[in-house]
């Protein structure tokens, strides 16, 4: 049994007269401990898909199963509970609370689960060490670099030990050095801590850190490649190949 299963998920926007199929009949599984990247050009529907998985948006049709729960059926309080207990979010623009310090930002994820303060302190310090942000814990977001902010956001996402970490363009606002550092941390979380990560990106380099890449075009799964046993460099080349194919018109590539 896989951790996450999408069955014929569809998401339509607009009215009857002008219908946009943002997600058009997508199905796939994600196993526990997998690091999956979803790639696609802007407008391909990848962020919509992620929003559906994260229950921020509702699907038009289809089912999304996390373990035994059909999350498309959740409502109100259950939804909130699901989000805070089972999921971790990482956003492109960090979405840190600007009035809170890094420590408090990370702690917030635990305190809204009503965990005792002692446990919170221990958990925050552990995760800060894993992500290399111990020295910025008492700083405010405006005092940190983009990379540090994103690592704080990642710490907030995983400190609750969620079943699934969802990252929406996590490197989108970072320079290449910070990106690399962050992605290495993702790998660490994935391998050492066993976190299951789904990451949306349009950047091949970022995607090459994943163990598996899904390509989406016009709301459909266009291709899927696995890293297998090869090096990251080889995987990167493979991704580039698909992207080239994906980027142009299909007939051009043929």
């Amino acid at each position, binding site marked *: 049994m896989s951790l996450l299963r999408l069955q014929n998920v569809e998401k339509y926007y607009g009215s009857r007269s002008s219908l946009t199929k943002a997600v058009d009949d997508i199905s796939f599984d994600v196993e526990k401990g997998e690091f999956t990247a979803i790639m696609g050009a802007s407008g391909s529907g990848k962020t919509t898909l992620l929003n559906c998985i*994260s229950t*921020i948006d509702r699907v038009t049709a289809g089912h999304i199963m996390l373990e035994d729960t059909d999350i498309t059926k959740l409502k109100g*309080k259950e*939804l*909130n*509970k*699901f*989000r*805070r*207990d089972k*999921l971790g*979010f990482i956003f492109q623009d960090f*979405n840190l*609370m*600007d*009035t*809170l310090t890094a420590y*408090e930002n990370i*702690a*917030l*994820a*635990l*305190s*809204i689960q*009503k965990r*005792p*303060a002692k446990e*919170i*302190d221990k958990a925050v310090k552990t995760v800060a060490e894993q992500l290399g942000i111990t020295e910025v814990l008492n700083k*405010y977001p*405006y005092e940190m670099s983009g990379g540090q902010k994103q690592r704080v956001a990642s710490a907030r996402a995983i400190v609750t030990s969620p079943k699934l970490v969802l990252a929406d363009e996590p490197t989108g606002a970072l320079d290449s050095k910070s990106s690399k550092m962050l992605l290495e941390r993702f790998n660490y979380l994935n391998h050492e801590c066993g976190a299951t990560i789904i990451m949306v990106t349009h950047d091949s380099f970022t995607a090459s850190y994943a163990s598996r890449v899904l390509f989406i075009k016009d709301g459909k799964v266009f291709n899927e490649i696995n890293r297998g046993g090869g090096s990251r460099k080889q995987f990167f080349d493979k991704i580039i190949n698909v992207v080239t194919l994906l980027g142009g018109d299909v007939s051009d590539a043929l």
Partner: protein
Amino acid sequence: MLFKISLSNIRKSLKDYAIYFFTLVLGVAVFYVFNAIETQTSFLKVNEDQREMIKVLTTSISAVSVFIAVVLGLLIVYASRFLMKRRNKEFALYMMLGMSKWRISALLLCETVIIGIGSLFVGLLIGVGLSQVMSAVVANLFEADMNAYKFTVSGSAITKTIIYFGIMYAVVMLRSGFVISKCRLITLMNSGRRSEKITMKNLWVCVIVFLISAAALGWAYYSVGWNAEHLSLRKFGLAIIVGCVATFFIFWSVAGMLLRVMMSAKGIYHHGLNSFTFRQLSSKVNTTVASMTVICLMLFVTICTLSTAFTIRNSMNQGVEENYPVDFYVQFAESADDPEKPWLYKGGNIDDVYAQQNESIYDEFSEYLHFHDYIDDDFTFYDFMGDKRDEFLENNNEIYSRFNFTETIIKLSDYNALMKLYGREQIELADDEYAVCANALGFTDIYTGFLKDKPEAVIYGKSLKPKFTKCIETSIYPGMQANNAGVFIVPDNAVSENGQCFDNFVGNYNATDKKGVEEAEKTARAKWENAAHWYTSDAKGGTNYIMSTRIETVNSAIGIGAIVTFLGLYIGFIFLVSCGAILALKELSESADSLPRYTMLRKLGVDEKDISKSIFSQSGIFFLLPLLLACLHAYVGMRFGKFGLELLVVGDYIKPVLFTAAIVVLIYGGYFLLTFLGSKAVTREQK
């Protein structure tokens, strides 16, 4: 086109404007209601005294209205400045699109006019409705009948309201035009990109500042509330200034400490949304220290004004009950013809006054007492004090205790007859004994203080011992308030008839029903006026008289009570509305700015209930902080007021305070509730 944009702007920022508009409407309505009292009461059938009282009431309301207009004007300028600041981005866009500053000013002018006319219209409509209720309230106060009532609209009050508010809006327009003409595009554009810098104040500085201001406030409290006997005008002014400054610094330091204290309690701080809530709150308090201070002081004034007004009103009614136990009272004396003491009146008889007109004072009364009081030039307050005088003056520096007046003396038989008439306890004295009675501010205590040591009093050359070690608490001469500043009761044979001072007459009408009483009152008054008129117009030298009746006294008591209550309500209401509006505007705009934060909390999976709770505590504490300190101030203020008002005020303080609390809860609490609901709506995600 301009009109269309303004209208859509208003519609768009309805959430920001709603509470502003609401406040304007309230302001207009209250302004109208109070200024329309004159017209609203013109139909009431009231007697001369009451009409006079209503006149005084409307005149004082007119005077206070100027002050109210200034307060409202400041509020409107503050609010419009605040709302304009929030629209800097919008103005930047207009400018980038090539709109001239003139056109933007015209746009703003258009908006202000729309809001102004709208608020005036709605406010006047509500005001006209409420003022009908006011008619009933005034009629009830004066026990006038409402039969002649008809729906009234006061043209003069409408004109006045329009002129006053017109001036306020004009000031706002000029101001915003000026601001627009001065602003630069680049600053407007950058204004949205405010750096959310969190400046934590140094904890120790905060603690020290807090301790110093608390100590300063303590000093001010002590000197005003507990040590008021030694308060000079200069010290009083100093205490007020110290109190205001200390208030500011208390808010300043509490803003810094609040968060630190909460943060140190990790268990609480990292529970649910507490960390978020307290951060929001502390940043709010940090940026509003000045407004908080003003609001706190305004609340303080409001609470004091309202409770004092209610207390005075209550005691006015009670005072008459206690201090005017008969229906009719005349006091009369002729000039002493003493060139050295031209103010001195001595001797004379009321019977003579009436006799000149072949009238008699006694006809209308079923029971009465006609008695003289006496003075002994050699028996003054200082004489009574004897060698205790220096010590006493050292410790008491009120003006009334420094005046060396001749003590008033009455015969024991007159005293007992009077007490019988008043339905109070009579006393017995041996031939060498005296007693003292008083009930005016402080005098009971002063005389009791002396009587403890059993001082001998030398009256008309005869030495008398005090019978009691305490001063008897009663009034002698009927009045609206406790006015007996000390009367010596001596055995009948101890007085010298040469010392006759005033001739007094007190009596109850020879009537049982209300109508009979009114009839008797009319006759008694007419007779007196006739007699006194003749007597005083005669070139007979000076005479001095007092004539009062219970009905007249009750009416003026009601009148004074009504004036004080109306003025208190007027000021209190406007102040409360202003305070509520400032806090509400601030809180609502903060909430709107925090929308992304709430969106993020929702993404993290925080329950709506918890968000709601967080917003509730944020606005709750924000509203509560100034109120708490204001209550503390008001407690001390009322202690002082109690001291200062003892001359006027009797009776308990509980009811007035409860009334005040109810009004504060109603208006201030209402604003809090609106703010809470508004904030909740603003922070909800738009779908």
